[in-house]
């Protein structure tokens, strides 16, 4: 009897281990590859390589996002935490804690207020709020409340934002202008016909002078519209991928999820002067051959916005640490700041 029990126990434990093994296999087969996507079908042109590194700030290993530059200080946010790190030109680091009103797990993005560089706009979409944080005083300056779901807010003026919000159709988000009443409560001032599908059309949204630019994460589309939403023009990056990730909507449209892990094509975007900078994950045919003998970690493709977003070339960044990819980057003038898991590096770019 005892032998039978033991055998039964061992078989059951083995079955449990097989289930865990299958879960691990499912995780591994869906894991985003650390190598670049290998679609190819195009060539890159060297715009800059082995850029001159001006400064390097050491940090505790983590996941960081560059917020921007305020008064020559680089501001970075450690994702999912309340920690803002201020990097001074004299290489000292100061950590500022965000106030408790802000749930750090719900922070989607932080950007410098274009009208006052000591203020940060903190997008907490899941809480339905955008907080304005005064970095010099270390306290909240304003709170904008939304009673509808919104995505990708970009400041339109001192008291309005461009953002995507749910239209008449489920999972379709329309671009529009949101203003605020005296109680800082949001209302839709203008709604455009420009829309994106939830999740599959996800991307990066930024404003440049009078233009609003939307770069898709998962394909090679750049959508550009003006601030009145009157015209919508599409451009393409040099990447060859045009597919959408597969999703499934379950239970009467209440849950949409990816059927497999999405493969980001364009992960990061920055705008500076007349150029658009895109950190692409797609490998060109010549990346490993003639151009790139040192196998750099990251590429930044540069597009000339004044010449119909034509491809100008690629900035190649040296590998900082094996396997450590750029988490975020920021460009101001000829300074390129690249963020890695344990350091921030300031480069000088000339092209």
């Amino acid at each position, binding site marked *: 009897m005892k032998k039978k029990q033991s055998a039964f*126990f061992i078989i*059951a*434990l083995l079955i*449990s*281990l097989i*289930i*865990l093994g299958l*879960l*691990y296999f*499912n*995780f591994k087969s*869906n*894991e985003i590859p650390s190598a670049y996507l290998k679609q190819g079908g195009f060539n890159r042109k060297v715009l800059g390589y082995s850029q001159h590194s001006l400064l390097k700030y050491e940090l505790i290993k983590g996941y960081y996002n560059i917020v921007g530059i305020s008064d020559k200080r680089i501001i970075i946010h450690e994702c*999912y935490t309340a920690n803002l790190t201020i990097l001074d030109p004299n290489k000292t680091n100061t950590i500022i804690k965000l106030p408790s009103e802000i749930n750090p797990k719900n922070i989607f993005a932080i950007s410098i207020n274009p009208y006052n560089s000591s203020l940060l706009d903190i997008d907490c979409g899941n809480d339905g709020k955008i907080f304005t944080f005064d970095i010099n005083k270390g306290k909240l300056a304003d709170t904008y409340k939304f009673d509808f779901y919104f995505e990708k807010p970009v400041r339109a003026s001192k008291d309005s934002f461009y953002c995507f919000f749910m239209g008449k159709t489920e999972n379709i988000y329309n671009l529009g202008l949101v203003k605020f009443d005296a109680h800082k409560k949001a209302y839709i001032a203008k709604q455009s016909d420009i829309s994106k599908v939830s999740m599959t059309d996800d991307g990066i949204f930024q404003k440049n002078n009078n233009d609003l630019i939307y770069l898709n994460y998962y394909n090679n589309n750049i959508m550009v519209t003006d601030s009145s939403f009157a015209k919508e023009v599409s451009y393409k990056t040099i990447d060859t991928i045009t597919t959408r990730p597969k999703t499934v909507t*379950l*239970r009467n449209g*209440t*849950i949409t*999820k*990816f*059927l*497999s*892990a999405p493969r980001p094509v364009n992960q990061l975007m920055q705008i500076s002067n007349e150029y658009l900078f895109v950190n692409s994950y797609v490998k060109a045919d010549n990346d490993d051959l003639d151009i790139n003998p040192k196998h750099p970690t990251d590429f930044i493709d540069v597009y000339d916005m004044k010449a119909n977003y034509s491809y100008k070339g690629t900035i190649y960044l040296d590998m900082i640490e094996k396997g450590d990819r750029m988490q975020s980057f920021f460009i101001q003038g000829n300074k390129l700041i690249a963020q890695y898991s344990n350091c921030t590096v300031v480069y000088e770019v000339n092209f």
Partner: protein
Amino acid sequence: MKLISNYYKQIFNFLHYLLFALFAYASFSKLTDFDLFVNNLDKSPFFIGLNTALLAGLLICSELIIMLFIFFEKTCRLGYFLSFLLFFLFTGYIFLILKFSPYIPCSCGGLIDKLSWVQHIYFNILFMLISIFLFFWADKLQCDGATYNKELA
């Protein structure tokens, strides 16, 4: 000798009720907030591409079945055994999350939500030991199904 036997039986019954209550709580709390449970499973990198709504249903059903097995005298040993296996699976899953996941998804709802993933491992190991103790001692100290049925009524 009889005193010692009664003492062990009291411990046994206490642990038996504790395990039953835990499964009742876990299954009903998931049932009452099914959407939250499915959404939490959706956030896990180990369930990508799987039908998490179906998986959530299966997990709740297994918890209810284990609860019922523990409830009835004839099946309580099988209930303890299945309880041990479920805790073993859950502990293995937490280990996978902590070891391989690029991020830590949120855990579960209710009171146990207050526990971190590491605390959850200790919690699970404790209940694995309880389940195994009950399984091996059930032969010697038969769980008194009739008694606790009356108490619950």
